[in-house]
């Protein structure tokens, strides 16, 4: 799974919740919850979305790691690599 594929998966999960999100606005360090007005229900659906597309199970304690775009991609990349070893 390349970094870009992970990034697309994240964008896909986000746009499912908030269709009006414009991918260009997704700078690496934009704080997802503030920028796109995501409440706890949205964030849970976002996590479920990642689970469906990437098969990654994000525990509640790791939510904070998904705060930004960059953070989310790095976290997911590491999670996927762990699974490969």
């Amino acid at each position, binding site marked *: 799974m390349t970094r870009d594929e992970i990034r697309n998966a994240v964008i896909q999960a986000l746009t499912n919740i*908030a*269709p*009006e999100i414009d991918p260009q606005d997704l700078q690496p360090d934009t704080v997802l919850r503030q920028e796109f*007005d995501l*409440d*706890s*229900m949205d964030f*849970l*659906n976002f*996590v*479920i979305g990642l*689970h469906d597309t990437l098969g990654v*199970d*994000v*525990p*509640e304690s790791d939510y904070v790691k998904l705060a930004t775009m960059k953070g989310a991609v790095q976290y997911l990349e590491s999670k996927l690599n762990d699974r490969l070893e």
Partner: protein
Amino acid sequence: MIEFRMPTLGADMEAGTLVEWLKKPGDAVARGDIVAVVDTEKGAIEIEVFDAGVIERLVVEPGQKTPVGTVLALIRSPEEPTGATLKAVPPLPPPAAAPERAIAASSTAPPPAAAARARVSPAARKAAEQLHVNLEAVEGRGPGGSITVADVERAASLAKPAAATPDRLSGMRAAMAAAMAHAKREIPHLYVSTTVDLTPSLMWLKDENQRRPVTERLLPVVMFIKAVARACTEVPAVNGFWTDHGSVQGTGVHVGCAIALRGGGLVAPALHDVPQKNLDTVAREFADLVTRTRAGTLRSSEMSDATITLTNLGDLGVESAYAIIYPPQVAIVGVGRIVERPWVVDGRIEPRSVITVSMSADHRAVDGRSAGSFLTAFDRALQAPDKL
């Protein structure tokens, strides 16, 4: 007994003045006999009787202006004994008046009088609403300096491209604003609040979620919904409505859950019969409610059935707030953000996750004591999350 009435003698005759009687009580009359003379605009007209019989009594005296249809005299028909009871033969009532919605007379209500202000063409006014253009800021180049569609479109293109919100939203927000203003003015709000230690239920929740697949993970708000329901069963006064006939108890506990819409606006559809549902059902129904709210496919009953409303301001990063009641409900509960606070436990200070819970109540239906006991019941419920 036959009633001899003032006849209608013409399309436009409403009344006639009896000039003289040509018969007196006891006289026999045959069909077609002239019995009296009546004066009308067109002159004196002899009026005939249509029934054979004997004059019983002359009811109207000469000289009186008498409306058409008035009884002038009573005639005893031949086979009737004297003094027989009255056998009134009512004239046929005129045909039913044409209902107001007569098709032929089509009338269109005149448009409301436009207040004196910049002359704006109807099309421009419609375009301005759709493109969120403030008409005051538009320079009219139409006839006589009036504002036309072109002027509005030009103004719209110059301004920042505002996010195009669906038309439905703006209408709804206008309705919401009106309801809130009314509620604020009309309802005597009573405010109470308390701080609740959420640590035990959060720890229970953490364990619970670890054992669950991600799709069945529980959110804190679900616990708050159950807690509100529990407190309602203990303090029913807060669960119901204020109507013209005073307060009315809610037949069930339907918790209105305030859900933020993408792009602004708040709706609080009801989650029905919460006390009868376990945490999982409530969680599932709440998720479904949020999805359908944002898709705009709520049922009308969901929009109107709530007996109390919970607004979870924590999500929006607010610690506490005093919300305005949704009429006709009598109470609204606001739950703030989960924050870490020093908390005295067994004489020691410990960091604890706490929330501020506030309640606005309609003082006409809910007194301070009920409001206070509601918050304590809410707090107590959250201390035993497993029993929610």
